[in-house]
């Protein structure tokens, strides 16, 4: 049974509070017990506490499958890129290098690549993926487009990403500020990597004049 076509996965990184609930829920799943297929990444740990959940984006042109020399990564008809086929995977790690979103991971001890498959055992029977059911801030949302439009009127789902000259469209949507999407209907990831946050520096005027620790001997 395929994943219903009208249900989509929406990621809203703005809402992520870094609570790790998705990671814990994913770890408890029986199909890959003890390992989390969702990664909770810090954007810039030195500067900010902002985290972003990373699930498989289920590309319409899956680079991981393109580079797989063993033909182990397959996509089902509903557009879900499945985890590596166990008998075929040779744990070469090509997919890990190739994935623009950094999703697949090779488990050297078991000689297999495992990655998020949108909880195919659940979504294929119409249920939500584990992470989306537990996310308290709904940074991970699984539902219809109408629902997300109602819930997030300021944002627009976006599923086009530009990595240098490679354009990728995905089955998982990223929520973007609506005005930004109207200006540019894709997300230029490589350009954003070099971009520094503007007007983010916090000046503590209280201690601007004198160093309060000047007299402290270390």
């Amino acid at each position, binding site marked *: 049974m395929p994943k219903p076509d009208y249900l989509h996965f929406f990621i809203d990184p703005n809402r992520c509070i870094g609570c790790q609930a998705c990671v814990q829920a994913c770890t408890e799943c029986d199909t890959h017990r003890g390992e989390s297929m969702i990664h909770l990444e810090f954007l810039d740990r030195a500067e900010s506490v902002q985290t972003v959940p990373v699930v498989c984006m289920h590309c*319409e*042109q899956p680079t991981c499958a393109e580079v797989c020399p063993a033909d182990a*990564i*397959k*996509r089902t008809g509903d557009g879900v890129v499945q985890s590596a086929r166990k008998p075929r995977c040779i744990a070469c790690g090509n997919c890990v290098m190739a994935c623009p979103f950094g999703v697949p991971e090779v488990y050297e001890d078991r000689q297999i690549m495992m990655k998020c498959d949108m909880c195919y055992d659940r979504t294929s029977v119409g249920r939500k993926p584990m992470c989306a059911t537990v996310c308290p801030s709904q940074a991970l949302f699984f539902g219809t487009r109408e629902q997300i439009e109602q819930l997030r009127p300021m944002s627009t789902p976006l599923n086009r990403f530009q990595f240098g000259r490679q354009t990728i469209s995905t089955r998982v949507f990223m929520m973007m500020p609506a005005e930004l999407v109207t200006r540019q209907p894709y997300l230029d990831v490589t350009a954003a990597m070099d971009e520094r946050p503007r007007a983010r520096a916090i000046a503590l005027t209280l201690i601007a004049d004198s160093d309060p620790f000047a007299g402290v001997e270390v």
Partner: protein
Amino acid sequence: MNGDGRERLDIRIDDADRQGLTGTAPAALDRPLRDVEQVTIAPDWRPMDEQPAWRTDFPIDWPQDQYVERRDFMKFMVLTSLAFTAGQLWIAAENWWRRQRGGAGLVRLAALDDLTVGATRTFAYPSEQDPCVLVRTGEQSFVAYSQKCTHLSCAVLPRVAEGIIRCPCHEGLFDLASGRPVAGPPRRPLSRVLLEFRAGQIYAAGVEERTA
């Protein structure tokens, strides 16, 4: 409809009127809208007709990967049956050729008086690579078998007093009188060497391969 013009959704799961799985979609939408067989989009975004041939040979998508054309299936069936038929003809030709070539001929093994009752003697027949063993089981009875165990080709050793031939590798036992397996892993009897007696001499006259 609310005052702000947006429709509020009732997302209560247990709503009796809900349609579809989330209560927002018509129940008829349970089916995927587009043809699930055509999901592949190449990385360069060009249509599949313009893609290199290997892309269709090694598809990423399951529907295409599992798909077997009727013509391909027939081709496979015909070629496989052809291979089987050729194999049968080959076996028949081999048998015919072996019969034409004849046996290994007579090879003198020993004189009757060389062996006392219960004595054994090893020899190679029909070629140097076929070790065999000759046993005098009685005053007038001789048996000779190939020494290759029918299990994994270990050398079998006769135990004349117990009336058996034993393979030490996996404790396979054969009947000394007939060469048939009586215990252990072997399931086929030992190949028997046919003997001829002429003027007080024992000759090997052929090998009888047996399957049961």
